[in-house]
């Protein structure tokens, strides 16, 4: 019989209702899997509960050897908890590992943890650490390492520690450190987290890219060679030259997890220029890339390369900052929403490579998604709303990054608004500068990566006064609804609240959220197992080179 829970405990009470929702089609596959993982249900158990057939085993037999050449921006290494791009983690993750891995099928695989279990009230998380893993210096991987990392993650006083926000309930808002007594070492291989309030997002948080597990001696060293001197992973770092390239090679010693097929991996930075990456593919200089822009797919196909696709919860929003006149007037904002046909934005901005979204930043991939219907596309109404607001002459200035698809999307939105008779100017700010004021621009486009739970993003981005609330939207009623939703572990129950939240969000008109993106990775024939991941992670332990180029 399938082992349902990761630990020995009996099935979590919330698991079966969730499975029920899934079977009725109220939540999607990946949302279901995410929920199950959060509760500590095994993947196999989740599959069984959800009535999903397990994936067939690999068709081909992996081959050992070869260096995989990857095109990717090589950003400078920094303390992993402050990573602000998945690219950094993709080098780091070959050397050091994560407690949990978010797999391509949206399930969570225990990695350095062997198992975890969530108490019924969702306030206690017990983590069982995998035994038999040793650091490259001979130290045994144990609770000390995990606690060291947990404490570092929870230190919100450190600038730009982005794991702190993922640790949610563990962080004391006063001291900006872990809540005293929350992290409890049970024994050398068991750690218990005692949460002051229920939090169902911890395990997904630990799978996120900044949560690399470093050795207990790690203290913020920024030289990657020193930082990765002691590792648990399959590879060791050979070089890490920011902006240029990075290289790892397989260790001589066997890896606890088993086989790592590649001899090594070399990432080369081709900057953001698509042409040079295509040229690199053509020249046979690279085997695969980090991400392929939707617009380039046709080119890569023309080159006879393979594209791997995955739909994600990543999206872009054109948001108003209500602190700026005339966007304090909901009519002006609504006019824009009515003017834009999200379908066309998807077509022109992303080459149709995604799903149309409905301007409320919760999607069908989220467990708690409530379908409130598509945004009404009504140019006449848009014009009328603007007239009502007395802003007929207003010129919207839409700001975006100069990144290709983001720029194209913003241009498409601007085009739609113009079609409806609104006046729009476009302004582009280079990536390096964009973030200086990203949350203060009156009307701009921001990219949001997908998170396993729908409520996660909404709480992060639209709650009054939240540090990433770029809309300056503030409504006590909305905040109350958010609190309510956050306290409801059951997605079905949460859905009712979500319906209100989604409706309020859309009616407030603060965001145009045209689509959910699909992301792509391209690789040449003869390279196996480097399919794109929903969070752009590179799980290269699964990759191997069938034939040299």
């Amino acid at each position: 019989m399938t082992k349902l829970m990761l630990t020995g405990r009996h099935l979590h009470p919330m698991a079966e209702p969730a499975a029920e929702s899934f079977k009725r089609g109220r939540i999607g596959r990946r949302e279901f899997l995410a929920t199950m993982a959060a509760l500590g249900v095994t993947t196999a158990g989740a599959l069984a509960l959800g009535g999903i057939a397990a994936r067939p085993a690999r068709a081909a037999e992996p081959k050992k050897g070869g260096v995989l050449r990857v095109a990717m921006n090589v950003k400078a290494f920094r303390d992993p908890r402050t990573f602000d791009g998945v690219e950094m983690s993709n080098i780091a993750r070959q050397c050091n590992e994560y407690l949990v891995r978010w797999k391509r099928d949206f399930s969570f695989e225990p990695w350095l943890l062997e198992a975890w279990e969530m108490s019924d009230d969702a306030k206690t998380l017990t983590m069982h650490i995998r035994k038999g893993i040793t650091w490259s210096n001979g130290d045994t991987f144990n609770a000390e390492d995990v606690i060291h990392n947990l404490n570092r993650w929870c230190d919100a006083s450190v600038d730009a520690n982005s794991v702190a926000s993922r640790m949610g309930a563990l962080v004391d808002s006063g001291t900006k450190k872990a809540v005293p007594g929350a992290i409890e070492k049970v024994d050398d291989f068991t750690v218990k987290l005692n949460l002051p309030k229920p939090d169902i997002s911890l395990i997904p948080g630990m799978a996120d890219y900044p949560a690399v597990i470093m050795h207990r001696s790690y203290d913020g060293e920024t030289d990657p060679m020193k930082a990765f001197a002691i590792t648990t992973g399959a590879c060791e770092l050979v070089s890490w030259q920011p902006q240029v390239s990075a290289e790892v090679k397989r260790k001589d010693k066997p890896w606890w997890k088993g086989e790592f097929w590649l001899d090594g991996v070399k990432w080369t930075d081709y900057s953001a220029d698509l042409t040079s990456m295509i040229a690199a593919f053509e020249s046979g200089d690279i085997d695969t890339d980090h991400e392929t822009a939707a617009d380039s797919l046709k080119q890569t196909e023309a080159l006879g390369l393979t594209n791997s696709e995955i739909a994600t919860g990543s999206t872009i929003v054109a948001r108003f900052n209500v602190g700026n006149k005339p966007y304090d007037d909901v009519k002006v904002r609504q006019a824009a929403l009515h003017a834009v046909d999200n379908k066309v934005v998807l077509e022109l901005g992303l080459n149709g490579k995604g799903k149309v979204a409905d301007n409320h930043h919760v999607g069908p991939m989220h467990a708690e998604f409530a379908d409130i219907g598509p945004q009404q596309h009504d140019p006449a109404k848009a014009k009328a709303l603007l007239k009502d607001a007395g802003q007929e002459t207003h010129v919207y200035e839409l700001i975006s990054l100069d990144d290709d698809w983001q720029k194209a999307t913003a241009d498409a939105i601007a085009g739609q608004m113009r079609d409806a008779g609104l006046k729009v100017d476009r302004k582009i700010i280079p990536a390096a500068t964009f973030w200086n004021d990203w949350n203060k621009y009156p009307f701009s486009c921001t990219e949001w990566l997908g998170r396993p739970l729908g409520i996660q993003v909404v709480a992060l981005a639209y709650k009054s006064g939240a540090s990433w609330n770029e809309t300056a939207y503030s409504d006590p009623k909305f905040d109350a609804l958010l609190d309510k939703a956050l306290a409801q572990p059951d997605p079905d129950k949460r859905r009712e609240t979500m319906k209100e939240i989604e409706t309020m969000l859309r009616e407030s008109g603060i965001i145009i959220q045209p689509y959910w993106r699909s992301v792509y990775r391209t690789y040449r024939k003869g390279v196996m197992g480097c399919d794109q991941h929903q969070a752009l992670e590179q799980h290269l332990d699964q990759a191997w080179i069938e034939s040299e180029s």
Partner: protein
Amino acid sequence: MSPLEIVGQIVLRFLPVWIGLAAIFVPSILFRRRLGPYGKLMENRVGQIGLGLVLFWVLAAFFADLIITSNPLDQVSGMKNALPGTAIPDRPGAFYLLGGDNLARDVFSRMVMGSRTVLAIAPAATLFAYMAGFMLGLPAGYFGGRFDTVFSFAANLVLAFPVILLFYLLVTPEIRASGIPILAAAILFLFPIAFFVLLIGARFSADPHKLVLYLGITLVLGLWVYSGLAFNADPLGVFAMDPNRLNIFVSVVFVNMPVVFRIVRGLAMEIRTRDYIAAAQTRGESSWYIMLWEILPNARGPLIVDFCLRIGYTTILLGTLGFFGLGVSPESPDWGTTINDGRKLLSVYPHPALPPALALMSLVLGLNLLADGLREQALKD
């Protein structure tokens, strides 16, 4: 549409340009004997071709509204990367003659409209660079001495800067926020006013009535344009400059200025040894009169040639800015930006990038040929 039909349609769309070209060229060739230096240009094949190419784009920019088939910003669903000659859905009889770009906009119309942006910025920026070059280069060349040393040093300083770095430092939003471009514009745009004030002042110093009248007109007009361009504060709202465009404009002027300075300075140094300058000096003419009325008109030959070349160079420079993502404005149909946008998909869709690239090449080529023709004519005299 077949390729032939596309070409035919395009030729037809350019009808106003053909008429304009004919209206300019036929009388020019007929009366070339009476038209002085310009008429002589008509006897030079290279100059004729160059002038033709330049005029083609000038007229295209002028008649752009008549030529375009779609609004250059209109995005039509279904026309993304459409091939040349694709019919527009819901608009019977309408086509994207050169296809659609990545945002489903009409490449043809964008190329035609792009000529406006290019021809609005490049010649104007070159002109401003010339004004500044005159105001600094003439005295430097004419007087020499310490003034020359200081300004030549400054010019060399700017020239020692890698152009790209300069642009990276000048065209960023950070610099815009710091107000430096406005300040620079405030100074640079003063040069033309100073130029005309001195020009008139030197000429009519003996005639107070005319002096006051002309100076008054110059100052009123000049300051009016000035308030609009430099500070975006034109009380009547006629002259305005988008801050991003102002920034680029100022930077381009700034980069060109030292080169023009050096040319003007060199010419002034050469011409000041002429007897007619000595004659003017022995008449007791003021220095500015000599510089602006005696030296400058006689330096015009090489200056006009360089002016043509410089417009071409500035056009390329604007394209370079687009290439580095520092371009005019995101949706602008200017050629540099469209080339850069189009090149990303070049290997599958060459049609969005090639027309603006060819347009840019032909304009710059035209300017170069024109300059060459002018130079050859000057040598023959």
